């Protein structure tokens, strides 16, 4: 009986749910301990400002409008870069997954490019685009391209061939076969790619903005470092964490909506 009772709990641990507040306990506890350590003087303010100081800095920046502007700029770069790179990656994944010829033609090249760390291109990108918007968009797009490309390709390749045979037997046209069998079958894998890509998207943007930018969260952090405003530096880092979490949650919601058929997403 005890074992049986424990089973659903094990399941819910594996699948974090949005409605649970449990997931916020640990971050809150960390902030609490952090505040305590700063107030007692255990951690000097020069090393790490207290969360209350960080919040205060955030409030000031919010009032001046600087914070909202920088968040908006970063968010815009992230989403546009993601749409461009993800879109191209998705298209290549589809075409290479469905066509042997296209796969033979382009896959080797793409795999070679994949093995270059895209951040290594920063010097080249600055030479090409300067510190213009297009430089950041290019880097983000390049970064998100590969996880989405690889996972779309993998998803399409691993669709159950028995289902494809079934679709053909029941007279599905190529379009129907794609819409009813291949695409839904590849979708779980595509979502894995999207979530990987979201992580890479923020990483790329942070690096690009700290090195070559005149606005955005990364730029704000670098400026603050110049003036020894450590509370603003910590604030930008925290905002990155929040934005990352937001993007991940959005993809989870989308996942739950489109994969409701999947046993892992069904209500207990």
């Amino acid at each position, binding site marked *: 009986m005890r074992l049986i009772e424990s089973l659903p709990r094990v399941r819910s641990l594996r699948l974090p749910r949005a409605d649970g507040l449990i997931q916020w306990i640990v971050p809150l506890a960390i902030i609490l301990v952090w505040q305590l350590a700063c107030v007692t003087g255990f951690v000097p303010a020069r090393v790490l400002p207290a969360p209350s100081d960080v919040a205060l800095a955030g409030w000031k920046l919010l009032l001046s409008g600087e914070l909202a502007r920088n968040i908006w700029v970063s968010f815009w770069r992230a989403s546009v870069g993601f749409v461009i790179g993800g879109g191209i990656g998705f298209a290549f994944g589809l075409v290479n997954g469905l066509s042997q010829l296209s796969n033979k033609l382009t896959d080797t090249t793409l795999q070679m490019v994949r093995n270059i760390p895209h951040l290594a291109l920063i010097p080249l990108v600055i030479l090409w685009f300067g510190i213009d918007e297009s430089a950041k968009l290019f880097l983000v797009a390049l970064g998100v391209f590969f996880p989405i490309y690889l996972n779309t390709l993998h998803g399409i390749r691993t669709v159950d061939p*028995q*289902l494809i*045979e*079934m*679709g053909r*037997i*029941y*007279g*599905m046209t190529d379009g129907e076969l794609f819409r*009813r*069998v291949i695409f*839904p*079958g590849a*979708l779980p894998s595509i979502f894995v790619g999207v979530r990987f890509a979201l992580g890479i998207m923020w990483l790329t943007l942070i690096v690009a903005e700290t090195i070559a930018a005149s606005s955005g969260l990364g730029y704000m952090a670098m400026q603050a470092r110049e003036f020894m405003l450590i509370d603003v530096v910590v604030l930008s880092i925290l905002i990155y964490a929040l934005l990352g979490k937001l993007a991940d949650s959005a993809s989870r919601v989308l996942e739950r909506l489109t*994969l*409701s*058929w*999947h*046993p892992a997403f*069904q209500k207990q």
Partner: protein
Amino acid sequence: MQEALRFLQTDAQPVDRGAFIEQAQLLRRSSEAAARGLPLTIRGLRKSFGDNEVLRGIDLHIPAGQFVAIVGRSGCGKSTLLRLIAGLETIDAGTVSFGEHARPEDVRVMFQEPRLLPWARVLSNVEVGLGRDRASPDAQVRAEKALGEVGLDDKRDQWPAVLSGGQKQRVALARALVSHPRVLAFDEPLGALDALTRISMQRLLERVWRDQAFTAILVTHDVSEAVALADRVLVIEDGRIAHDVSVDIPRPRRRGSADLAALEGSILRNLLQSADDTSDL
């Protein structure tokens, strides 16, 4: 359909009721005739995969509406024969013909795996079986009817993942039946089910075969299943038909009856004997 009825009511008042009913009956009879089975003739059928000659000349005639079981040891070519009949493999030599021109919807296959689309509800999975008629307005009604025939009306809005193995296989049967096929090929459809579910599925298969009168070809490794269901049992050995046994036991057949057991025993003896003869086992 509604259009036609309205037309009759408004413009064709003088049509007398008797003639109308007679016409409707005629219509119904012709649709029943369309649901009857197709005969199947196979001549000199050969198939190889690389150097391995799987079928070495099969000659076979199956009359319309007959229930034929094909048994044999694994690797004897029985599944290949079924896949050739269903048009899933290309023929190396010989012919497979169905008396008249068969539309793709006339020949359906049911596999050992249910092969349901996990991302489609049960009802949409059945609708897949309609083939080119999927987009027709009565698609849903027809799918519901087929689902009713296998006794799963109440599962129409479920995901396949929540069904049991037997229920999934019944959905697959409904999908195969929904287009009213005239030949239905079964490739060990009950192979993965437990013993009790198997027996109830066998009864279901027999019932739908009797109701819809299609030609049934059942590949199985279970000789007792073959004699319980079929009019005729074909034993395949080394890519040829080794025995052609007709099962003249009246239906409904009682499972475990002496007649069935005796027949099963003699077929099994044939199979085992040939297994002893071949030294390469």
